[in-house]
């Protein structure tokens, strides 16, 4: 058992290069080794036909209880549309100061908004979302610094505005 690492579990197809890039970024931000693994889960159980989306609350609990017993933090990456009961959609969520988080790439592609595809922008958004949700699991709350990855983002444009790094203030809180 190695509690001193972070595990990223991908549910669905993800390009290897993309995951490698995310792993490097996460390692650099949290100074912990990161491993990836493929997850196999019947997502239909989490599907809500009335909203045509997947229940983020239940998926988060599933990741928390069912995965990553041997790591300090576990984050599930999905390519389906996530919701929580009160919100129309979420990019991801995590237990503040907890062990688990989830992130979805579904709404991160330009094509969803009728804009020309851009793989670089897409990859950039993914790493920011993953680092952001993991930041919450390390106890970081939303940051007011416009450049900090912990800045709250409700639209993809908000994600594009910030960097994929923690600001000094948030970094100090990690120590």
């Amino acid at each position, binding site marked *: 058992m190695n509690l001193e690492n972070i595990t990223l579990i991908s549910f669905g197809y993800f390009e290897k290069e993309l995951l490698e890039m995310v792993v490097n970024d996460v390692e650099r931000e949290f100074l912990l080794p990161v491993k990836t693994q493929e997850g196999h889960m019947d997502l239909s159980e989490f599907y809500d036909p009335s909203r045509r989306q997947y229940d983020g609350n239940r998926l988060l609990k599933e990741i928390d209880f069912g995965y990553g017993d041997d790591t300090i933090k576990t984050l599930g990456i999905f390519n389906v549309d996530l919701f929580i*009961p*009160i919100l129309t959609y979420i990019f991801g969520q995590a237990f503040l100061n907890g062990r688990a988080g989830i992130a979805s790439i579904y709404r991160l592609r330009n094509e969803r908004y009728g804009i020309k595809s851009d793989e670089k922008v897409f990859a950039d958004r993914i790493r920011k979302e993953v680092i952001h949700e993991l930041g919450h699991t390390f106890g970081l*709350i939303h940051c007011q610094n416009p450049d900090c990855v912990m800045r709250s983002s409700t639209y993809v444009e908000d994600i594009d505005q910030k960097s994929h790094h923690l600001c000094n203030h948030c970094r100090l809180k990690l120590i």
Partner: protein
Amino acid sequence: MPKKISILIVDDEESVTDSLYNWFIEDGYRVECAENAKKALTMLESDIYDIVLADIKMPGMDGLEMLKRIKSLRKESIVIIMTAFATVDTAVQALKDGAFDYVTKPFDPDDLSHLIRNASKQISLLEENEILKEKVVSLENVEDLIGNSEAMQNVLKEIESVAQSNASVIITGESGTGKELVARAIHANSPRKFFPMVSVHCGALSESLLESELFGHEKGAFTGAVYNRKGRFEMADSGTIFLDEIATISPKMQVELLRVLESKSFVRVGGNKEITSDFRVICATNRDLKSMVEKGIFREDLFYRLNVVNINVPPLRDRIEDIPLLVDYFIKKYCMSMNRALITIDSSALKRLEEFPFPGNIRELENMIERAIVVGNGKKITLKDLPLGKTVVNTTFESLDDLEKNHISQILSKYNWNISVSAKALKVDRVTLYNKIKKYDLKPAK
């Protein structure tokens, strides 16, 4: 550091409360949840929440009824109503009943963030408004603290040196010397100046009222306690509490006060929740606390806790040289407030003021000048405008001749040395009056 906003989420669906809880906690808010209106109201009675997010459809009491009850508990609470079934009627009703806003579930993440941001802004504006009001009052009053005399300069130096610290201060001095102004000056020059200075006149309140005033009370704590009410200690959080006439508090209140000063925490009357507050204490008294301690009337431990620094404000009779300055200041102050042209004071009137003992100190002088401006001719304050005569007669003259001389002089001044009118007022003939003027060598004031 900005205040941490507290949010209470009220919804019978656990998935909703969980979702909102997780969402807000990530934004750094203090969040608590209740599954029904009854529980929420109980929580609101014992704690203060800045924002309440409530579902409209709940078993038992619905969100609209709860909204009314919350508003009766704490008028300034911000309540946002949520519902899955939006109708114009319910939205209008909610807003009429005082809801801050009305949202339909599910809402966009951005809408939710905007809503809470607007509500937070409203809260900080309300608080800022209160603080600015306090600050304006403080700054206005600090200007009143004037004097070039050595005694007053020493007081100002003491204020300057003590202001930056957090030490408790006792301000002593006779009634009307400006003890509250000294307290305001300490507060206005301290790092706490942007937070309120809360004054409590202990002598004006009975023991039970003082207790409720200082510590606050819960709804139903006693007859007439229809609302939860914050106490003065709670209101003075981050600021200063000024306890005037501290010598008048009862032995029971002395014990309570000592406990609060030591722990900086207290419980509201009728409540059971410990509330902490970071305040600085400044007290004032016109009595000799030390001798009260020796007589066993005032607790020694409380005296030492309060008396870290003692500032004694001198009576006006010990700083006569400040009288012209103070007179000038009060003339300007009242001419401006009464919207009148600036007037001056007659030299003989000023001289008499300097000779007057002023048992009521600066307060008495201030009232005298205000009265003189009201009753005077609007150009110059003269002796006849000042109510000094009777007191001077009572305290200075012993012989009948002196008394007669003074009275005739006053009447002559009053009627601008019109002999006929003055003689008529004195009920003597003009010849007698001329003889008296000659006898006492009376002359009109220049």
